[in-house]
């Protein structure tokens, strides 16, 4: 029998393996194929499991599940009876009951969010050129990538956290909410006179005793208030809703250059029955990204250290604008560099998938860098590129892989596209590229075998 001795040359040999005619380590001989499908499938599983646990079927819990189901039905019956007795029970009572029953949404420091309070602004405020992030703001990041940033003097309190909902209240002042889309929880933000329901978006909420304002920068929210016609009002990106006594307007953005973003008053959605004259919906003339970027902020963004997330949306917007300018000016190198920086520094920006796609187009069409282009297109797709561009992204990804002569990955892309879009308009083109690459590889390889890929599998 071999001696198990770290220092001897026989340390890695085994009498068993020797007798079998095998050499350690055996993993060189037996390597399971972990394809892109498995990688993505498992990632989705990781994301699902990071959400509060949902029951996974296991043989020995079936009976327990049945018992739990019966108990749940009984509980529902009892709860229903209680609701019948007290129909006017406020929703808040349910919210308060939630935290103890489920996993809370934790902050990035693995703590439970309770309170976010920013110190009041100094009497003599900083120069108008300062961005929001450079003032005395307070910020909390959550493990799912969401964040809350309270402006000076603002106070945000936790109300509840459950598998399906995370609720906070803006007690005073203004706060920015960046809610990562696709998460398992609905965010509910309570303010004076209003309640905002959020799935994935960037918005500002300002509240005090007199009223509140909600401004949506990205995505869409639903605002509920007795002052609104019908009790609720959907709000899209670029729109502002004011309830109660108008506040110091959110649209009077703290950034310099706010004048060009002055709100444009829209017609109320239901002018026939306005529930409150104080409720008005306004839309910004702001360009995408909605918060806009002033030239003064660009300097501030450039001076921030890499990875800084303060004022992320504005800095990302600056990079977008500069990249657009560089493209228009015929500087693809510069544009690609800016887009790459945007992708790296602001991965949670709502436009990051589009940035990765644009970067890939530049790399493929203008810079003749197909290896990098393939990575950019893959990244864009993984980051959830919009449906309108996914077709093109797959085709361009395939074109890039075709240029780098990587038939194996090209076949994988082709199979993935065919699975996702059986009638996709680019299917024939992608399959043609895959077939051509495979044929070329066979011609190149001796004995008609498959040629090795031109680059390492990323």
């Amino acid at each position, binding site marked *: *029998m*071999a001696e*198990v001795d*770290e220092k001897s040359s026989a*340390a*890695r040999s*085994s*009498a*068993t*393996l020797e*007798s*079998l*005619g*095998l*050499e*350690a*380590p*055996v*993993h060189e*001989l*037996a*390597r*399971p*194929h*972990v394809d892109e499908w*498995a*990688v993505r*499938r*498992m*990632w989705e*599983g*990781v994301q699902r*499991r*990071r959400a509060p646990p949902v029951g996974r079927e296991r*043989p*020995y819990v079936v009976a327990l599940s049945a018992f739990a189901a019966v108990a749940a039905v009984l509980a529902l019956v009892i709860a229903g009876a209680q609701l019948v007795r007290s129909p006017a029970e406020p929703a808040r009572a349910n919210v308060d009951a939630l935290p103890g029953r489920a996993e809370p949404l934790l902050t*990035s*420091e693995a703590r439970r969010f309770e309170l976010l309070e920013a110190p009041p602004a100094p009497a003599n405020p900083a120069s108008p050129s300062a961005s929001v992030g450079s003032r005395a703001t307070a910020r909390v990041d*959550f*493990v799912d*990538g969401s*964040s809350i940033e309270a402006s000076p003097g603002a106070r945000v309190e936790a109300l509840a956290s459950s598998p399906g909902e995370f609720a906070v209240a803006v007690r005073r002042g203004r706060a920015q909410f960046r809610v*990562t889309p696709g998460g398992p929880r609905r965010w509910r933000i309570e303010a004076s006179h209003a309640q905002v329901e959020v799935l994935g978006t960037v918005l500002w909420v300002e509240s005090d005793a007199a009223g509140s304002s909600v401004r949506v920068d990205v995505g869409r929210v639903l605002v509920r208030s007795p002052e609104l016609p019908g009790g609720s009002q959907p709000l899209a990106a670029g729109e502002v809703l004011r309830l109660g006594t108008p506040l110091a307007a959110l649209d009077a953005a703290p950034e310099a250059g706010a004048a060009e973003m002055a709100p444009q008053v829209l017609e109320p959605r239901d002018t026939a029955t306005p529930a409150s004259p104080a409720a008005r919906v306004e839309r910004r003339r702001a360009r995408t990204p909605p918060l806009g970027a002033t030239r003064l902020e660009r300097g501030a963004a450039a001076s921030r250290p890499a*990875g800084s*997330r303060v004022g992320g949306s504005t800095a990302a917007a600056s990079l977008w604008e500069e990249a657009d300018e560089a493209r228009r000016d015929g500087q693809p*190198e510069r544009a690609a*560099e800016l887009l*790459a*920086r945007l992708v*790296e520094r602001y*991965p*949670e920006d709502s436009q990051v998938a589009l940035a990765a796609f644009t*970067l890939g187009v530049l790399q493929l069409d203008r810079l003749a860098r197909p290896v*990098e282009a393939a*990575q950019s297109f*893959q*990244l864009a797709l*993984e980051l959830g590129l919009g449906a309108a561009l996914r077709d093109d992204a797959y085709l361009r990804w395939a074109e890039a892989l075709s240029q780098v002569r990587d038939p194996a990955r090209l076949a994988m892309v082709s199979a993935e596209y065919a699975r996702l879009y059986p009638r996709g308009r680019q299917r024939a083109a992608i399959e043609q590229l895959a077939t051509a690459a495979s044929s070329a590889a066979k011609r190149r390889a001796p004995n008609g075998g498959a040629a090795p890929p031109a680059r*390492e599998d*990323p």
Partner: protein
Amino acid sequence: MNAREAAVLPFLRHPGGDAPLDRELVERALGGESLAQQLLYRRHVRAVTERVTRLLARIGEAEDVVQDAFVEAFTCLPSLEDRSRFGAWLMRIAVHQAHRRFRRRRLLARLGLDRGCDDARLEAIADPALDPDRRLALGRLDAELTRLPASLRLAWMLRYVEGCELADAAAQSGCSLATIKRRIQRADARLQARLGDGAPRSRSSHG
């Protein structure tokens, strides 16, 4: 590497010993960047999946364990002291989860509830170009490995299938160096007793 490459290429770099990049990604993940988590996942998922699949010999269970391992790793990320060692730490979590899975599998088998199929035995996932003798040898090894107690099987496989250093094997098994040596010796002795005689030798030492 220019600025552009530095910005984009590391995202999808194949896993390797790039500890500084791991450290950076861990710090960014701790800062709340969901993409950093995804990049950490992409850098390590293949290595972890390959190892766990070989250990468990079941693809479905391996994927389950890998997902649990990443969930545990991301949840406990703040407790990781040496952030450049994310890969080794993650692997330890995964192997520990695999060990637990072995124990559960044994319990289910005793209750007659283990309906799993060893679809990723070493022989089944062997290189298609492997010569028949060594493929047969892998098959015999598979059969005997399944008869070993979980702790012995894990120790022996980490050492001789995965090629781990003793210290790494001990760390991943959650035991001392002396214990891992003892387990490996015992496992090798048992396997040798069953396989030592009459095992076919390959026609050449290199495949």
